[in-house]
C-alpha cells in the first residue's frame, strides 16, 4: 500500500476512528453469538459499515474489501433473515482481527513517517480466502448444485451490490440534505448547516468508496462528479461555519440538483451533461463574507437557581452530619425543588441519587449520607465547571466546536513530562515548608504570612497533583474487555463452557499499572480455564452447572485497588502443594508442615514451583504464577490466593492506587528518620514502658484489651543485638505505630513521631533495600534523603 503526503492526515484520522470502532467489535460479535438477535447483527453490521466507509475514504482497499464482504453477509442476515451459522462468528472475528492488524501496520509505519510517500508493507494476510468464505457463506449451503455458476458471477455481483448500496445511500442523503436546507431557510439554525455538511460528507465518502471498489468502470465518471460536487458543498459549508460567514444557499441547492441529475444518469445508465457540471465546479463566488448573527442561548438562570438549591442540600446534609439532634425530616422538603431542578437542567437520572440521600438522611445512616453527598457534590462540581465554560452567546463556529468529542487524546510522553513536573513541584513544596519552619524560628514576625503562603502552595500542588494523576487514570474495564475473546477461544479449544463476568469496570488505575496488569491477568485467566474449571460432563457429575463462571472483579479498598480473578472450578489441593513445596525445598520442612492450608497454597507463586513437572496432575495451577507475583510486586502490590477444593479459586491482586506519592508518617527510629506509609497505619499512640512484656523472645502489649505483638524496629533495621531494655524514652512512654496487617494488627516501636505529609517515592537500588524492609526513598525539604519502610515485609 502506498499513500501520498496529502493523504497522511486522512489516514491518521481514519486510524484513530477505526481503532476506536474496532475496540468493542469483539464484544459485539460475542454478544451476537450469544443472543443471535437482529439488533446484535445490526450492531456488528454498523461497525463494519463504518470501517468500510473510513477505509474507503483513506484508500485502504484491503480493509474496504474485507469489511464490505462481511457487511454484505450481515446485511443479508439482517434484512432477509438468513441463518446465523457458527462459522459466521469465526469469520467476523477473523475479519476484525485482519482489519486490526492492517491498522496496526499502518500505525507503526506512520510512527516513523518523515515526509514523502508512505509505503506500508503487507504480506499475504489471507484476505482473499476470507472474502471468498464470506461470499460463500450463503451460496454453498443454499444451492449446492449451482455452485460453479454462482462463483463465476460473484465478482461482478460484488461490484453491483456496492453500486446499489451507494445509490440507496445517495438517495437517503439527498433527501436529508434537502429537508435540512428547507428548514434552514425558515430559521437559520447553525446546527442544520452541520447536518447538511455531514450529509455532503457522507455522499463524498460513499462515492470515494465506490470508486475504490469498482475502479474504472463505465459509470465512474458520474460518480467522480458526485464526489467533486459533494466535496465542494462540504468545503463551502465548513468555511462558512468556521468563519461565521453567510452561506450561499443558492449554490448548495444548485449543487444538490446536479447530484440528483447524476444520480438519475447512473440509474438509467445515461451520460451526464458535462458543461454545467464544469461551470458549477469552477464557480468560486459562493462564499460570502457577511457575518452570521449570533444567537442567544437560553439564560443560565435555571442553572444558577439549581446550583443554589443543590449547594443548600449539601450544606444541610453536612449540618445533619455534624448535629445529630437536627430535624432530618426537612431533607425531603429541600430535595423536592432540587429534583424538579434536575429535570429542568436535563439530568433526571440524578433524581434517584437525591432520593437515596433523603432516605439515608431520614434513616440516620450517616456513613451512607456522607458518601452519597460527596458523590453528589463531585458530580455537581463537574457540572458547574462545564456550565461555566459554555459561552453566553454562540455563533455557528462555536456550535461545531461543541459537537467535538468530550475526550482529548494526549500523547503519553507529554503526560509523563507533566507527571515529572508535578513531582518537582511537590519537592519544592516540601522545601518551602521546611524553610518556613526554619524561618519561623528566626523571624517570628513573618510567621503567619509565610505559613499561609506555604499552606496555599501545599493545597495548590495537591490539587495539581491529583488532577495530573487523574489524567493518567483509565478505567480497568478497558483491560477486562480484552479477555472476552481470550476466554471464548480458550474455552472452545479445551471443550469447556465458561462465562466471563466482569465487575467494577469503572474502577480507574494508572495507565502504566494497567499495562503491567495485562500479563498477570492473562496468566490467571488461562490458568483458571485450563486447570481450574472442569469439563462440562465432569461438572455435571458433581452437581455444578455445566457452564463454569470466571469473574474479573475490581474494587477500591483504602489506598489500594483490588483486582480479583475468581473461578468456580476444582480449586487447589493444598496437600499436594505442601508435598511439592517440601520436595522443592521452598522452605524448611518443619515450617512447611506447620503451615495452614491457606499459607501453603501461597507457594504456587514461588518461582520454579511448577515449571519442572506437568502442572495439570496437581489439579491446580502454577504456570507463570511467579510472573504474576513479580509483576504485581514490582508496582508495590501484593498477591494472595484463596481456594476451596471443589468450589473454586480466587486470586487477589492488591494494587496501590498511585505510584508517585504516598501519604506517610515521618518518624525517628534510632538516629535516622523514616517514612511509614499511612495506608497501613491504624493508629499512632504511646504506651507506658511497663505495659510491654516479653514472651518467648516476642514483645507484646495490650491496646484496649487486645493483645498486639510489638516489633523492635531499630533492632530489625540495624540487625544488631540492641535490647529494648537499653533504650530510654521520654517519660517512659514508648511511641508505637499500630499497623493493620491482613489478619491481625501488630505494632512497631519508633523513637518519636515527627510529622505527617505527602512524600514523593523514588526507587532505590536493590542493594540498599536492606532485606526488603525498604521500599523506596524520598527527598526531604532540606535535601536529605529518607527511606520509606515497607511494613508488610517488616514482620516476616
Amino acid at each position, binding site marked *: 500500500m502506498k499513500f501520498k503526503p496529502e493523504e497522511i492526515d486522512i489516514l491518521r484520522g481514519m486510524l484513530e476512528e477505526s481503532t476506536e470502532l474496532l475496540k468493542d467489535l469483539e464484544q459485539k460479535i460475542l454478544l451476537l453469538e450469544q443472543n443471535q438477535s437482529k439488533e446484535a447483527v445490526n450492531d456488528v453490521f454498523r461497525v463494519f459499515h463504518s470501517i468500510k466507509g473510513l477505509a474507503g475514504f483513506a484508500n485502504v482497499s484491503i480493509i474496504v474489501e474485507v469489511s464490505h464482504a462481511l457487511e454484505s453477509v450481515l446485511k443479508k442476515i439482517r434484512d432477509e433473515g438468513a441463518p446465523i451459522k457458527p462459522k459466521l462468528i469465526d469469520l467476523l472475528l477473523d475479519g476484525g482481527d485482519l482489519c486490526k492488524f492492517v491498522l496496526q501496520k499502518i500505525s507503526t509505519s506512520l510512527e516513523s513517517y518523515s515526509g514523502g510517500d508512505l509505503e506500508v508493507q503487507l504480506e499475504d494476510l489471507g484476505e482473499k480466502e476470507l472474502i471468498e468464505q464470506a461470499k460463500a457463506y450463503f451460496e454453498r449451503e443454499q444451492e449446492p448444485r449451482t455452485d460453479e455458476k454462482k462463483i463465476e458471477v460473484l465478482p461482478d455481483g460484488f461490484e453491483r451490490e456496492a453500486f446499489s448500496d451507494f445509490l440507496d445511500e445517495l438517495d437517503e442523503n439527498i433527501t436529508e440534505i434537502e429537508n435540512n436546507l428547507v428548514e434552514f431557510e425558515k430559521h437559520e439554525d447553525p446546527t442544520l448547516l452541520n447536518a447538511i455538511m455531514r450529509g455532503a460528507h457522507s455522499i463524498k465518502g460513499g462515492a470515494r468508496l465506490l470508486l475504490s471498489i469498482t475502479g474504472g468502470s463505465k459509470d465512474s465518471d458520474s460518480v467522480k462528479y458526485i464526489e467533486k460536487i459533494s466535496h465542494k458543498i462540504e468545503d463551502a459549508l465548513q468555511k462558512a461555519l468556521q468563519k461565521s460567514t453567510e452561506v450561499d444557499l443558492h449554490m448548495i441547492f444548485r449543487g444538490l440538483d446536479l447530484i440528483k441529475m447524476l444520480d438519475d444518469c447512473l440509474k438509467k445508465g445515461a451520460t451526464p451533461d458535462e458543461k454545467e457540471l464544469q461551470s458549477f465546479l469552477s464557480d468560486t463566488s459562493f462564499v460570502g463574507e457577511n457575518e452570521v448573527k449570533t444567537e442567544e442561548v437560553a*439564560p443560565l*438562570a*435555571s442553572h*444558577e*437557581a*439549581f446550583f*443554589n*438549591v443543590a449547594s*443548600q442540600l449539601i*450544606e*444541610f446534609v453536612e*449540618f445533619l452530619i455534624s448535629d445529630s439532634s*437536627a*430535624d432530618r425530616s*426537612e431533607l425531603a*422538603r*429541600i430535595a*423536592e*425543588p*432540587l429534583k*424538579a*431542578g434536575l*429535570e*429542568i437542567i436535563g439530568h433526571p437520572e440524578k433524581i434517584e441519587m437525591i432520593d437515596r440521600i433523603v432516605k439515608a438522611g431520614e434513616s440516620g445512616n450517616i456513613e451512607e449520607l456522607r458518601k452519597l453527598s460527596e458523590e453528589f457534590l463531585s458530580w455537581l462540581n463537574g457540572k458547574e465547571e462545564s456550565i461555566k465554560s459554555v459561552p453566553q452567546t454562540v455563533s455557528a463556529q462555536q456550535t461545531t466546536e461543541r459537537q467535538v468529542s468530550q475526550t482529548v487524546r494526549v500523547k503519553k510522553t507529554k503526560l509523563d513530562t507533566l507527571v515529572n513536573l508535578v513531582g518537582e513541584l511537590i519537592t519544592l513544596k516540601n522545601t518551602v515548608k521546611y524553610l518556613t519552619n526554619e524561618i519561623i524560628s528566626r523571624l517570628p514576625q513573618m510567621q503567619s504570612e509565610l505559613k499561609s503562603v506555604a499552606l496555599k502552595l501545599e493545597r495548590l500542588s495537591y490539587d495539581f497533583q491529583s488532577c495530573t494523576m487523574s489524567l493518567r487514570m483509565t478505567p480497568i474495564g478497558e483491560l477486562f474487555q480484552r479477555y472476552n475473546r481470550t476466554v471464548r477461544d480458550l474455552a472452545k479449544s479445551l471443550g469447556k463452557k465458561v462465562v466471563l463476568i466482569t465487575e467494577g469496570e469503572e474502577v480507574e488505575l494508572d495507565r502504566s499499572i494497567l499495562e503491567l496488569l495485562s500479563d498477570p491477568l492473562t496468566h490467571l485467566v488461562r490458568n483458571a480455564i485450563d486447570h481450574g474449571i472442569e469439563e462440562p460432563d465432569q461438572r455435571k457429575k458433581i452437581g455444578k452447572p455445566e457452564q463454569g463462571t470466571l469473574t474479573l472483579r475490581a474494587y477500591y479498598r483504602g489506598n489500594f485497588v483490588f483486582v480479583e480473578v475468581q473461578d468456580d472450578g476444582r480449586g487447589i489441593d493444598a496437600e499436594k502443594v505442601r508435598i511439592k513445596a517440601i520436595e522443592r525445598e521452598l522452605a524448611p520442612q518443619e515450617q512447611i508442615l506447620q503451615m495452614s492450608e491457606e499459607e501453603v497454597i501461597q507457594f504456587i507463586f514461588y518461582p520454579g514451583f511448577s515449571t519442572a513437572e506437568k502442572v495439570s496432575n496437581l489439579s491446580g495451577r502454577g504456570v507463570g504464577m511467579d510472573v504474576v507475583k513479580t509483576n504485581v510486586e514490582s508496582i508495590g502490590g501484593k498477591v494472595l490466593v484463596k481456594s476451596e477444593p471443589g468450589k473454586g479459586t480466587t486470586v487477589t491482586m492488591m494494587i496501590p492506587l498511585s505510584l508517585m506519592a504516598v501519604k506517610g508518617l515521618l518518624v525517628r527510629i534510632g538516629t535516622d528518620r523514616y517514612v511509614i506509609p499511612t495506608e497501613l497505619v491504624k493508629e499512632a499512640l504511646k504506651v507506658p514502658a511497663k505495659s510491654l512484656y516479653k514472651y518467648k523472645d516476642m514483645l507484646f502489649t495490650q491496646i484496649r484489651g487486645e493483645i498486639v505483638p510489638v516489633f523492635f524496629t531499630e533492632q530489625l533495621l540495624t540487625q544488631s543485638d540492641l535490647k529494648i531494655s537499653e533504650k530510654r524514652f521520654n517519660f517512659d512512654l514508648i511511641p508505637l505505630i499500630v499497623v493493620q496487617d491482613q489478619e491481625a494488627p501488630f505494632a512497631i516501636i519508633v523513637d518519636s513521631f515527627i510529622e505527617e505529609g505527602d512524600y514523593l517515592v523514588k526507587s532505590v537500588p536493590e542493594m540498599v533495600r536492606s532485606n526488603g524492609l525498604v521500599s523506596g526513598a524520598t527527598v526531604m525539604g532540606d535535601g536529605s534523603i529518607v527511606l520509606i519502610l515497607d511494613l508488610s515485609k517488616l514482620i516476616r
Partner: protein
Amino acid sequence: MAKILIVDDSKMTRDFHAYVLRSADYEVLEAFDGADAIEKLYREPNLACILTDINMPVMDGLTMLRKIRSIPEFSKLPVIVITTIDRPEEKMQALQAGANFYLVKPVKPSVLIASIQMLLKGR
C-alpha cells in the same frame, strides 16, 4: 397563573419582587410582616408559594414559617426564604424552620424566576 405571596416589610423590596414576578406572568399578593401573611394565607387558599424575608417587625419570617408548617393544610406549601449575606447562621435556621430553600440577597430577577419555576414544577 400561579399566585405568589411576597412577605417583606420594605415596600421597595416588595414592589421590586412584585414587578419581577408580574413580568413573568405570576399573580402577586403582598404582606408586610409574618402576622399579616398568615392572615392573608387563610383568605387566599389557592396560593402557589410564599416568598419571605426574615427580619420583620411584629412577627419575623422564621416564626411565621414555623407557624405555617404547624398548620396541617399549609405544611406542604412551598416557601422560599430570602436571607442576607451577612447572616450565614440564618441559612440553616431557615431550612430547619421549613423553608424549601433560601435565596441570598440581592437576588437576580432571572434566578428568582427560575427558582420559582423549579419550586412549582410538577405541582
